[in-house]
């Protein structure tokens, strides 16, 4: 089946396209315009914007912790039910896998990465991902608090041993990349450590957080994984933690490193309350460190829930829970905390956080090195994305918002002085071309021949939030799934993984380790394809080695 999207404003930064033209697709893939071909179906998209499907590199959409959040907060809903097929009146969208896929698709997102899968909980994460309709998914495997790794480092074993271990864990948990979360912090918290910084050592192992990050960065690089090590730094959410972020950027030492939800590390100690935005300083450092990429973790106002494997930070935040309840979880060689939170416009600290995120977006020069996230649901639910696009694209809108926020907070940020407005082309770079490159997904994020036919068509509007909330058309792998913001077809996508090479001896070593430490076979956490319950659930992308 040959389909033509005719006469749209095609924005495809990966190919330098930004003008009126056609996009052709045959079945599931994009093709060049056939010399004399006649389309089986033509969509007149004149006057509309045509982009590749968007890619979210960091959104907590699946796994035990996300599900614990659902169980903890039966009162929590998505902020919008916009995409619901609409046969029936529906309260605000329920927080479940079906709505997750539908709401993302309605906004033109076609691939989403769950960034924190604990290896021992991998099966549940993949069962949940498999139940999210329409979009494709991927998972990042969490390492860095695990006893096996910490022992490798303590004993100063070879880089090969570490590499094999990372490859083994990644393959068995079906991850696309490696995430490290407050490296060593969850392990230290079990020994009653209450604060943990980059050069602190994990009790009992004598290994510093920095050493863990550096070792994992090297292993990811050596394995040729397409996605750089994805780092959740120490000291999240603390006044003055910009120093931690700056030190971590410096520690990249020219090798690729991705720093997640940087907004939560962009705080100085200025002002009467000892809390200020240091985002401008941080953006300057990001601009200078060319091997580093970041995502923002924008805060938006309203009720949400913070879900994080940074158990130490979540424990320290527990008494600020809104409403007053939380779950703190000491997991197998890991941890997690679920703490509900209500970001308020009237709250000085929340207003500084909101401004700091926008500063990072607007002061980072290169839109291919700053990624669009709210760290869903930690800064805000992903349903708030359209409002954030609007804020980035419209300084008057920002001024209106700022007028309603505490003045003393705005005085401690540079946001009021920033005139930059994102263009649609920059938005397309940040949400399409760049994330595909960052994740090694060569056939996504662009509209060139051979790409997966994941396409979002928007109707331009003065109200950018409206434009991005309800795509006019969305194609997923060539199938029309959304029309005028409503889901009209519900297929199931796949989960993208890597399978890096490893020495076979690691298998035996890990089986012995599991038997000795846990008295169990590691089979308990493995993810056999047949157990996922959908045909052909995984797609592997190649490593560069």
């Amino acid at each position, binding site marked *: 089946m040959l389909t033509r999207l005719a006469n749209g404003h095609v924005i495809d930064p990966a190919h330098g396209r930004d003008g009126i033209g056609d996009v052709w697709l045959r079945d599931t893939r994009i093709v060049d315009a056939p010399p004399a071909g006649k389309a089986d179906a033509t969509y007149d998209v004149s006057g509309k914007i045509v982009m590749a499907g968007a890619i979210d590199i960091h959104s907590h959409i699946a796994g035990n912790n996300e599900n614990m959040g659902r169980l903890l907060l*039966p009162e929590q809903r998505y902020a919008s039910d916009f995409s619901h097929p609409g046969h029936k009146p529906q309260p605000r969208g329920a927080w479940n896998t*079906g709505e997750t896929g539908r709401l993302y698709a309605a906004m033109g997102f076609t691939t989403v990465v769950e960034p924190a899968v604990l290896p021992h909980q991998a099966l549940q994460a993949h069962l949940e991902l498999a139940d999210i309709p329409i979009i494709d998914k991927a998972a990042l495997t969490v390492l860095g608090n695990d006893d096996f790794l910490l022992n490798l480092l303590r004993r100063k074993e070879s880089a090969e041993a570490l590499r094999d271990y990372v490859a083994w864990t990644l393959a068995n948990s079906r991850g696309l990349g490696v995430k490290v979360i407050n490296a060593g912090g969850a392990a230290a918290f079990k020994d009653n450590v209450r604060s943990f910084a980059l050069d602190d050592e994990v009790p009992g192992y004598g290994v510093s957080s920095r050493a863990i990050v550096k070792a994992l960065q090297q292993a990811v690089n050596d394995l040729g994984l397409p996605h750089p090590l994805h780092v959740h730094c120490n000291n999240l959410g603390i006044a003055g933690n910009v120093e931690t972020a700056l030190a971590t950027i410096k520690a990249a030492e020219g090798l690729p490193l991705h720093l997640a939800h940087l907004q939560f590390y962009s705080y100085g100690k200025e002002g009467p309350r000892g809390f200020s935005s240091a985002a401008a300083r941080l953006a300057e450092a990001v601009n200078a460190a060319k091997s580093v990429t970041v995502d923002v973790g924008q805060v938006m106002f309203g009720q949400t829930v913070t879900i994080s494997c940074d158990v130490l930070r979540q424990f320290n935040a527990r008494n600020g829970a809104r409403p007053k309840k939380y779950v703190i*979880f000491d997991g197998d060689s890991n941890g997690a905390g679920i703490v509900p939170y209500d970001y308020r416009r009237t709250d000085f600290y929340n207003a500084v956080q909101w401004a700091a995120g926008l500063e990072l977006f607007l002061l980072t020069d290169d839109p291919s090195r700053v990624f669009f996230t709210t760290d869903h649901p930690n800064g805000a639910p992903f349903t708030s994305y359209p409002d954030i696009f609007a804020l980035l694209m419209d300084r008057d809108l920002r001024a209106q918002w700022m007028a309603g926020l505490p003045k003393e907070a705005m005085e401690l940020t540079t946001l009021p002085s920033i005139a930059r407005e994102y263009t649609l082309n920059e938005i397309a770079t940040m949400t399409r071309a760049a994330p595909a490159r960052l994740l090694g997904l060569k056939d996504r994020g662009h509209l060139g021949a051979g790409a997966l036919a994941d396409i979002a068509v928007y109707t331009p509007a003065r109200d950018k939030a409206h434009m991005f909330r309800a795509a006019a058309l969305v194609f997923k792998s060539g199938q029309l799934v959304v029309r005028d913001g409503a889901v009209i077809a519900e297929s199931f996508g796949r989960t993208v993984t890597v399978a890096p090479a490893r020495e076979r001896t690691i298998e035996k070593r890990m089986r012995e380790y599991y038997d000795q430490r846990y008295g169990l076979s590691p089979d308990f956490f493995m993810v056999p394809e047949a157990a996922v319950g959908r045909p052909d659930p995984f797609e592997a992308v190649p490593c560069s080695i």
Partner: protein
Amino acid sequence: MADAWVRGQPATLERAITEAAKLLQQSRLPVIAGLGTDVAGARAAIALARRVGGVIDHMHSAALLRDLNAMREGGMMITTPNEARLRADLLLLVGPGLLEVWPELPARLLARPDGGKRRIVWLCPGDGTGNLGAAVETIGKDPAELPVLLAALRARCAGRPAGKPPIDAQKLDALAADLTKSHFGVAVWSAAEQDEIALEMLCGLVKDLNATTRFTGLPLVPPDNAAAVQQASGWLTGFPLRTGFARGYPEHDPWRFDAIRLVDSGEADCALWISAFRPTPPAWSHDLPTIALTPTLDGFRRPPEVAIAVGRPGVDHDAVEHLPATGTLTAVSAGKSSSALAVATAIARITAVLPTAEPC
């Protein structure tokens, strides 16, 4: 041997499937209950409930909800069986029923694998501590005393005076001091036989202890894969069990969607009863048109309208189940699989012969 019955008579599987679909289709409010099944069965059951506007409830929801209520009212600090096994220097077993829901508890938790010291105290174990013998020190006996004992213990741990504890005051103070001094204490309980107030008090005690040291909890889960079905309900509906779809979208209410209440009050007019691990009959007293998916009909008061024999998850077919030893969902291989029908397959076949959803 027949594998399907209609009104007590052996029938072909096709006929049983058709009759089951007919009952569900005619029903104004079906309950899909029991839910003793694997994750595939839970997915199918929840999809069916959505389709027919039914209610989902598990036979062990009462116990699940007791834990859940403590969690969603005030929060909880928890750990895994593995971390408890590796790290606990003080194991506080609380209340009765622990060995019943997790017979491997002694094998997994009594000794530290590294040979380190582990003190084990069992509060109010009721009638039996099994053959744990000298490894365990018991304090109190009658589980009915637990709420007061835990309240007194919590008060003493926080340095506040306690009213009239059910145990000797000096013993209470010594225990409070030991809890405070432990490095990684773990409280273990089973909500199946736990008073809700006691549970809230226990979770509060654990949270209080973390002001200065590390202490956490290990809730033991009920059988029949209840924890896995609860997880599946969470991700598929956004809610725990006792969720209904009558309005076309999921709504959760522990009272309104209690299957026993719905059946006994006459609100529900049809039941799909699932108990694949063992043939447990429903606990309600009212009779209503029932479709049973169980291995046998042992224990049923009267034959259900439709019965379809199903295989045991993880025994007759591969399954995803919650494992008590790891606290995770795990793919269990059946080894040799039998021809017995899986719950998911039976429900898929029933769903396939339902008339297409009405446009609405």
